């Protein structure tokens, strides 16, 4: 008999973990798929350079206690197949995994906006730098500049500092008024306020943005603009984050509705497909607390524990208010669209400069003419950039949803045609 679970959860970050634990006492067969070697997602990424927070440790221990939860780490989803099955791939092989209910907790990725020098070695995403440090990258004694927008900059600065780096500057593009207003409201969320105090940074500047990364072979300095002034900061690392882009590809491929760039869900985290739920940042940015409660609601709802799911709605409403304030306070300044110069690369897989895209009137035409988005990342980075810079909508995702070995794709020989969009609820 082929492998099939009552509840299959894709993504083992806060939302996926909370969902698995919420659903666990149903006794049903639950599996948690994640392409990282260990659960935790981006925020609780494990590695040699990590001491996991208590909450993350408790979640992992709880996961291990439940015999009905199967953890499939190092496993990527490649395609949707027929009969409620997904084609997945791990380091050794590909196979089809079936589900009765599917929960998407596929998270979000960083929006990396192009500016002159952004492809120099030493320049990473803000979350990317955290991941590298957690993975064991030594940064002790290095000078670091962090730029972009949102609380992730402070989290990234804290990680770098804890690892012994010297954070010269945190350049936040939002205005002082917006950030101060947000900070004042933090009092409504005591947990967050404590976190924010812990992240206090002497180098924090508002209304500041990176203009260029300078260097020949690798990063040597960063040019920051603040109001009418520019400062040049010699440094070894620059970490940039301009917010997060929901990972909606699998949901879109299944036929879920996408609204404002995120998977659309109802009160109980159901998508328009009766058997598919979604929770966490693939349904919109909101931070780990919102992901945890959304995951728990989805986990309960997916196994039919509707009352327990509904009991969590007030808590979710509270964190959604927080998310809305976050989004308002750190809205991106349209001036960021002017950062790239004509020769600034937008697609780094295929070396496509800004000038090769600017004249086009849509993603498909630009892609065909320039090869933008045709490389190994398949537009995950530059597609979001083109969306921000030019307002283009990328095409609907096709299989393979991520690069996959040809022999993995051969597993689809045994399948029938998928029903194009599943079964809508209404």
């Amino acid at each position, binding site marked *: 008999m082929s492998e099939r679970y009552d509840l299959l959860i894709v993504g083992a970050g806060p939302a996926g973990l909370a969902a698995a634990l919420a659903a666990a006492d149903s006794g049903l067969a639950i599996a948690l798929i994640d392409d990282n070697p260990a659960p935790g997602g981006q925020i609780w990424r494990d590695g040699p350079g990590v001491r996991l927070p208590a909450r993350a440790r408790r979640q992992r221990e709880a996961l291990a206690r439940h015999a009905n939860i199967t953890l499939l780490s190092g496993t990527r989803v490649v395609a949707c197949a027929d009969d409620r099955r997904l084609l997945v791939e791990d380091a050794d092989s590909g196979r089809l995994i079936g589900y009765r209910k599917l929960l998407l907790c596929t998270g979000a990725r960083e929006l990396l906006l192009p500016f002159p020098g952004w492809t120099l070695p030493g320049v990473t995403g803000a979350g990317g730098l955290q991941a590298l440090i957690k993975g064991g990258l030594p940064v002790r004694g290095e000078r670091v500049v962090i730029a972009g927008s949102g609380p992730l900059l402070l989290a990234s600065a804290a990680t770098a500092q804890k690892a012994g780096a010297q954070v010269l500057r945190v350049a936040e593009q939002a205005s002082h008024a917006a950030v101060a207003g947000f900070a004042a409201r933090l009092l409504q969320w005591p947990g967050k306020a404590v976190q924010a105090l812990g992240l206090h940074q002497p180098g924090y500047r508002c209304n500041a943005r990176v203009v260029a990364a300078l260097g020949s072979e690798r990063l040597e300095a960063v040019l920051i603009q603040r109001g009418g002034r520019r400062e040049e900061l010699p440094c070894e690392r620059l970490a940039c984050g301009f917010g997060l882009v929901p990972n909606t590809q699998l949901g879109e491929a299944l036929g879920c509705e996408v609204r404002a760039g995120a998977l659309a869900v109802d009160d109980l985290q159901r998508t328009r497909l009766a058997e598919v739920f979604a929770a966490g940042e693939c349904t919109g940015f909101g931070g780990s607390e919102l992901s945890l409660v959304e995951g728990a609601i989805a986990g309960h709802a997916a196994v039919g524990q509707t009352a327990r799911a509904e009991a969590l709605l007030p808590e979710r409403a509270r964190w959604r208010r927080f998310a809305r304030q976050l989004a308002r306070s750190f809205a991106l300044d349209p001036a960021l669209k002017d950062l790239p110069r004509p020769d600034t690369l937008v697609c780094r897989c295929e070396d496509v400069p800004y000038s090769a895209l600017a004249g086009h009137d849509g993603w498909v035409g630009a892609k065909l003419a320039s090869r933008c988005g045709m490389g190994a990342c398949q537009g995950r980075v530059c597609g979001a950039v083109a969306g921000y810079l030019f307002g283009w909508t990328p095409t609907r995702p*096709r299989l393979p949803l991520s690069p996959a070995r040809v022999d993995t794709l051969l597993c689809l020989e045994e399948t029938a045609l998928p029903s194009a969009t599943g079964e809508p609820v209404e």
Partner: protein
Amino acid sequence: MNADVIIVGSGIIGAACADELARRGLEVLVLDDRRGGATAAGMGHLVALDDNPAELKLSDHSIGRWREWARDMDQGCAYRNNGSLWLAANEQEMAVAEAKLKTLREAGMACELLGAEALRATEPELRDGLPGALKVAGDGILYAPNAARWLLTRGGRRIAERQGRVAAIEADEVRLDDGTRLRAPVVVLANGIHAPELAPDLPIEPKKGHLLITDRYPGRVSHTLIELGYVTSAHNASGPSVACNIQPRPTGQLFIGSSRQFGTSDPAVDGPMLARMLRRAVDYMPGLAKLNGIRAWTGFRAASPDGLPLIGEHPRRPGLWLAVGHEGLGVTTAPGTAELLAAQLFGETPPFAAEPYLPERFLGARDAQRTSIPSEAGR
């Protein structure tokens, strides 16, 4: 009048026709609705096919033209004269290879038969036990979207482009779906599978195909590899079929094809069909199984009942010219198509007989004299 000629479709056929007519001094307006067609979806394989003498003549002549043009094409067109290898899987197919060798040599084309050992030395990634292959030296590859762009721009200002969807063509008037009316004495349909929307009597059907491209693995394959079963099974079958077709791109990536399905207009990648196609390719090149595929997509070939394109004036709609129905061979045969169309339009003797491609063979006899532009009209 908005132009001497309006061409509907800016794919490789429309672009080649625009280039040829502009070169002859006509003012050309090219319309495209950006739905995309076979030019954007195909492999860009320049391949001489010989299902019949007309197909061989058109493809051989055109490939020669591409070789000449390649000297002037930009890097983005990615032209390579890498040659094709027709793979024989058994002794019967080896006999087919020998027959093909004879046909192509008689047409004056450079080709040679490789035995089992020579084939292994030439393409070591192929599986053991293949008895041999036919190498066709003149075949090549290019990146068709950029080749079309190059053709539309190299002639300067005689070619104008406009985005818009054509709703109807009535005599010399082209009506767009936004109500705009454009006029020209000659209108050329070069919009592939979409042509029957504007000329419902065209016997053109979409034939769906799949392609997959791998990550970069430079140096593994040098020729475009096609199984000879392509000719005997895939190309002529009416049901869904697959054939091994592996093409090295200048980036080091590999294109893997090909599949054929009638009776569907769904552009979704069909997992089982894709897998069947990949299995066929892995049968010939076992190492392919361990390579990463990064993207798969589909496209629709505009297929005519006899596999040859329709090139010439519509027999009952004076002024409406056709350059459609090229199936999987449009990129290869765009130059010859444009020359045949132009020769008929200017009342000249074409470079080779135009009869096999005339629309009359499906649409019935002509009831009016052919529209033509006297040669001196060219400026």
